[in-house]
């Protein structure tokens, strides 16, 4: 259900950009999605394929997804590590004073248009 909601947001934003740029039809849209943004890519594509059919300007537009890996920064030892593997605790110094520096993104990167 979450995926359908974000698909509606993407379509709305993309249509706005298309209008501003006098686009006739949209061939593809590329998203950048953070590894820990909580979106299931397969569901997202299913929702996309269903939702774009209702949009004349983009009824055959493909959704492309690029993943941004999740990285966490440790305030104590200044190290950076893979979030998905080690989660909240720093693998170098066992500190809990860590925060996510990337991997939560949900960006529309670009679109191919005619």
């Amino acid at each position, binding site marked *: 259900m979450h995926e359908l909601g974000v698909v*509606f947001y993407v379509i709305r934003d*993309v249509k706005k950009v298309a209008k501003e740029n006098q*686009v006739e039809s949209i061939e*593809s849209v590329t998203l950048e999605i953070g590894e820990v943004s909580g979106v299931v890519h397969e569901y997202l594509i299913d929702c996309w394929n269903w939702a774009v059919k209702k949009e004349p300007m983009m009824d055959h537009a493909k959704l492309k997804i690029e993943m941004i890996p999740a990285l966490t920064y440790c305030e104590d030892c200044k190290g950076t590590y893979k979030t998905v593997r080690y989660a909240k605790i720093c693998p170098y110094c066992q500190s809990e004073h860590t925060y996510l520096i990337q991997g*939560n993104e949900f960006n529309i990167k670009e679109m191919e*248009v005619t």
Partner: protein
Amino acid sequence: MGEFRVLEIKQSIFADNDRRAKELREELKEKKVFLLNLMSSPGSGKTTTLQRTIELLKEKLQIGVMEADIDSDVDAATISKMGVKTIQLHTGGMCHLDAGMTAQGLAGIEAGSLDLAVLENVGNLVCPAEFDTGAVKNAMILSVPEGDDKALKYPLMFSICDVVLINKIDVLPYFDFDMETCRKNILMRNPKAKIIPISARIGEGIKEWTKWLEKEVRQWQES
């Protein structure tokens, strides 16, 4: 593929909503209306907690409630019996409310004359956390039967909440729920979270919660 133009967009899908939410907060500040976004999973006791909250605060504050659900109006019917302005918002299948929908709801209950507007968000611990509604403060309810590990499973929700109410503490003896573990997990996600154990059913802890809320409303109106 050579015949296609490529338009670079480079924009977060949340950017538009974040902007709208910020505008809404500024409007509310001007009108001295405090908007509370109340979130939780389904069945954690949002509506019952709200009933207790209204009982204690309705003499002191003008309160209005927006009930957001995918469908039905059972919650709005319950709350309207409490004698406060109520509106039911249907999200039409969406799993959350965004700032635009919240602004419509506020207009619907004529929030300008209120001290406290409460948005009872869709029961869900994932999506509502990602969309800023324009609320002044975010509160969530975690109930004992859900387990003390929820902050580990839904990190974003816990990290954006100013206050976490741990509801249904009257049934603690029947569940393997450890209050200290729960606190530790929540504070790991959000060291600033205020945690208040309550039982909306028997009324325990509700005073501490309403005191916090009243203070926040006054501060927002006076600052």
